[in-house]
């Protein structure tokens, strides 16, 4: 019978530190990548609106398709090892990770936001137009707020899903939570216990994010909860 020995992890401050630092790194990198990815995704989605020239819409659609149909690890390696060769400029692995996450997140967010904009009733566009608002004003004050409120649940679950895949950035040596787990497991040989601890910590961070999304909902879409 297997005997769990969690104290092998706790007894060294070095291991505890590694895990806590890993948490912090995973959490902040995903948060920053999520925000930059959201901004880029929003831009990509707006570019895809029918009023824009076909060529830039096609570019945006192609980008989103390309990212969503290739593995994250390939994108990550391209950004960390390929791009520096092409540009003849080396940046840190953390920068690579952030860049890859932004590029990756943006495509998924773009797709969700685009669907959200499609979901806003045509009557809303018509009412805005009939009040002589320009297209951009309608988008900004009428369509986008509703679209984003519509898709906030999808954005939040997409974000959580992407967060849970960020363990992959340990592959390029970024010292995030999965990396820390391996670090401790390699030294204690308590792989099972270490990854149970990681599981709990990942879940905890997911709940912190979900709490954050609740706050966003209340702060940014106060009108939403009153919807019938």
């Amino acid at each position, binding site marked *: 019978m297997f005997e769990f020995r969690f104290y092998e992890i706790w007894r060294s401050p070095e291991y505890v530190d590694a895990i806590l630092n890993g948490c912090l790194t995973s959490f902040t990198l995903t948060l920053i990548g999520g925000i930059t990815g959201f901004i880029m995704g929003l831009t990509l989605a707006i570019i895809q609106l029918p009023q824009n020239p076909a060529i830039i819409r096609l570019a945006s659609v192609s980008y989103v398709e390309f990212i969503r149909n290739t593995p994250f690890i390939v994108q990550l390696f391209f950004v960390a090892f390929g791009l520096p060769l092409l540009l003849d400029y080396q940046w840190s692995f953390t920068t690579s990770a952030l860049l890859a996450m932004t590029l990756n997140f943006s495509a998924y967010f773009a797709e969700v936001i685009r669907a959200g904009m499609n979901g806003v*009733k045509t*009557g*809303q566009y*018509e*009412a*805005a*137009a*009939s*009040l*002589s*608002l*320009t297209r951009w*004003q309608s988008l900004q*004050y*009428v369509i986008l*707020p*509703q679209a984003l*409120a519509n898709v906030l649940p999808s954005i939040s679950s997409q974000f959580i899903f992407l967060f849970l895949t960020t363990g992959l950035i340990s592959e390029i040596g970024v010292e995030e939570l999965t990396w820390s787990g391996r670090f401790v497991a390699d030294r204690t040989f308590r792989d099972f216990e270490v990854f149970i601890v990681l599981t709990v910590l990942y879940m905890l961070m997911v709940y912190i994010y979900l709490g954050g999304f609740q706050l966003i909902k209340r702060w940014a*879409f106060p*009108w939403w909860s*009153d*919807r*019938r």
Partner: protein
Amino acid sequence: MSDTEAAEEKFAVEVRAMSKWYGDFRVLHDINLTVKDGERIVICGPSGSGKSTLIRCLNHLETFQQGYVSVNGHELNEGMKNVEAVRRDVGMVFQSFNLFPNLTVLDNCVLAQRKALKRSKLEAREIAMNYLERVKIPEQSDKYPTQLSGGQQQRVAIARALCMEPKIMLFDEPTSALDPEMVNEVLDTMIGLADTGMTMLCVTHEMGFAREVADRVIFMDGGVIVEENKPDEFFDNPQHNRTKTFLGQIL
């Protein structure tokens, strides 16, 4: 109308030989219609007759392929640039209200004043409250649209359109989506508006309203204006068989 001659020279709405197609289907067939300043027109007809499409052409929510349309002196055509200038003079009220759910009642009325007319916040709010009072709903100004009843929402929608101080108001079946007990509050608001001398084109089946308010009633069927007349003549002595059948069905 104090000055009939001047009004005849300049029409609020002028539609000449206008036709519109959806693909091969001709929804509007050679429409001719002129509306003078301050005139109140009721347009009725069976569903699919093109009556909504017609008034939606007047603020360029729909385009037409043939003919001439001018609204308050602006000529409309398919690829026109400055649509906003036309729409500034034309308010519209929709069947499904189309209030912005993300904005309070007050902000629904303030938004376009600020962004399209560049009014100051203070002025826009003052004007909004003024019109909300006119539609008898100022106490709801801080609520969100979904917290209001259908009749209240439609009255807010009327106030929102009036805040832009349009020259012409279009009503596209404003009471069709309402519960029966709320129809009258909206009609009363519209009657009040008619009393101020507003030029109005109303697509509606409320024949009591038509009799009381309209200067002319227009009957459309199959994309054609079949008959137009003063309300009393229209209801008591319809000329065409299709009009008689239609009136027989709805009265």
